[in-house]
């Protein structure tokens, strides 16, 4: 019980910390809105040419665009999550302090990332999404149950997202400068999460492969739950399985790293 309180406090602290970056949040909202605006017109042109592409109608494609903008910073798909801070701490050796704490490294950073993610969802995600809903026809469900199912899928997406980024961050134990791995992870993440184009539009075998990868849990899975395109329970099972695999891998890598690696700094 005490442990749960500790991690809840870490998450709350992280949430509060992000609330203080007010100008940066406003700037992010503006930028997400502009990018959403550009993307939405390209999608409209695409769906105009080929209605029902990937099984979406035009309103669903529009919804997908604005969901993507709402999730970009929430799930830190293009960077900006706690992994950057963790990598910096590994590089400078400050991670030794984290390891010294009577708390688990992975859970500590998970709590911190969840606090950040919830803030970004509310602070940066909601406004661009509302802007989109106001100016473009969207396919939003009327049933409260569907929205609840959607929010559960977002939480699972947060867990999977952290699972991936924690592995990326731990690479810094060996490489010291994790910038290269982080950049590669963003690239793969942007492409395979469906941030650039919905995964069900990807042609042939490429489409089948990307839909099985963990990144499809991030944007595609919650979007399909909201749009009524996927069965929530099957989606949760898929996301949950990836979360378990990634957390186990993170735990394994963490124990290898902390046993083998000499921490820098003095």
């Amino acid at each position, binding site marked *: 019980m005490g442990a749960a309180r500790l991690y809840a406090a870490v998450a709350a602290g992280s949430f509060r910390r992000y609330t203080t*970056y*007010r*100008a*940066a949040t*406003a*700037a*992010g909202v*503006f*930028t997400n809105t*502009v*990018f959403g*605006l*550009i993307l939405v*017109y*390209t999608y*409209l*042109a*695409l769906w105009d*040419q*080929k209605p029902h*592409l990937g099984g979406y109608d035009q309103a669903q494609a529009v919804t997908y665009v604005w969901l993507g903008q709402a999730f970009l910073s929430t799930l830190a798909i293009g960077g900006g999550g706690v992994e950057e801070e963790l990598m910096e701490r590994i590089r400078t050796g400050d991670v030794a302090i984290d390891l010294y704490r009577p708390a688990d490294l992975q859970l500590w950073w998970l709590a911190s990332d969840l606090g950040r993610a919830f803030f970004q969802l509310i602070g940066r995600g909601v406004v661009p999404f509302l802007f989109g809903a106001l100016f473009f026809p969207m396919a939003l469900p009327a049933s409260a149950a569907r929205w609840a199912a959607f929010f559960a899928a977002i939480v699972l997406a947060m867990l999977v997202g952290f699972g991936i980024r924690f592995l990326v961050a731990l690479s810094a134990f060996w490489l010291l*400068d994790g*910038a*290269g791995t982080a*950049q*590669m992870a*963003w*690239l793969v993440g*942007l*492409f395979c999460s469906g941030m*650039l*184009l919905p995964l069900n*539009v*990807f*042609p042939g075998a490429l489409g089948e492969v990307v839909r099985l990868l963990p990144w499809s849990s991030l944007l595609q899975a919650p979007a399909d739950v909201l749009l009524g395109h996927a069965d929530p329970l099957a989606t949760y099972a898929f996301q949950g399985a990836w979360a378990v695999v990634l957390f186990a891998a993170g735990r394994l890598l963490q124990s290898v790293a902390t046993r083998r690696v000499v921490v820098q700094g003095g």
Partner: protein
Amino acid sequence: MQGLRAYRLIAGMWIRSTMAYRASFVMTAVGNFAMTFLDFVTIALMFSQVDALGGYSLSEVAFLYGLSGVSFGIADLGIGSMDRLGRRVRDGTLDTLLVRPAPVLAQLAADRFALRRLGRLTQGALVLGYALATVHIAWTPAKLLLMPVMLVSGAGIFCAVFVAGAAFQFVAQDASEVQNAFTYGGTTLLQYPPTVFAKELVRGVTFVLPLAFVNWLPASFVLGRPYPLGLPEWTAFTPPLVAVACCALAGLAWRAGLRSYRSTGS
């Protein structure tokens, strides 16, 4: 002239420093290339589903993409590091630049000169090469002459956006992300045909923030396409004038910004 010399010296210093870590340079340059390459992969994926987007074929979109990519690539390579100004204002290191006997603008433009941005420029040039090889253009001397003029003017217009964005950061500091909406957002917008976007948006980027002069208008002349907003044909030849006007305005904004600067004192 003194500014150019300062710029050359500082940029040269950063290039030498980059070259001290050659492997890291190669990796980040490749990453930079790959990051922008994904944009084009997205467009190619769209065209795996349709034959035309907004009435433009893949090679025509590639033509727009290449022009936008090269123009922006030049500006980004040259002065793209200027978006660090907000950070320098915040931590007080801008003061160091103020006391040096060289124009602040030149120092800041060359600050952390990032040769890895050649990756983006190369990618734009490759796509432009692909477009020129596949698109059918009835070349005339005027069209040939317009090509280099359009690239240089486009780079000038994007440079003005960067400088104006930096000037805005004197006021906004933390809100440096707003600039991304106009720089990276701008180049993304121009990668797609003007026929895709709503009239008001096209009007905005023609008359308010004249990005349309980077490629949309001159490319309409080269491709022999109808002009956006039904503008007259001579507007295809105005990009140099627009670029000069933009740079002058950005220069004024920069002066105003620098005048209003108050050091943090730390």
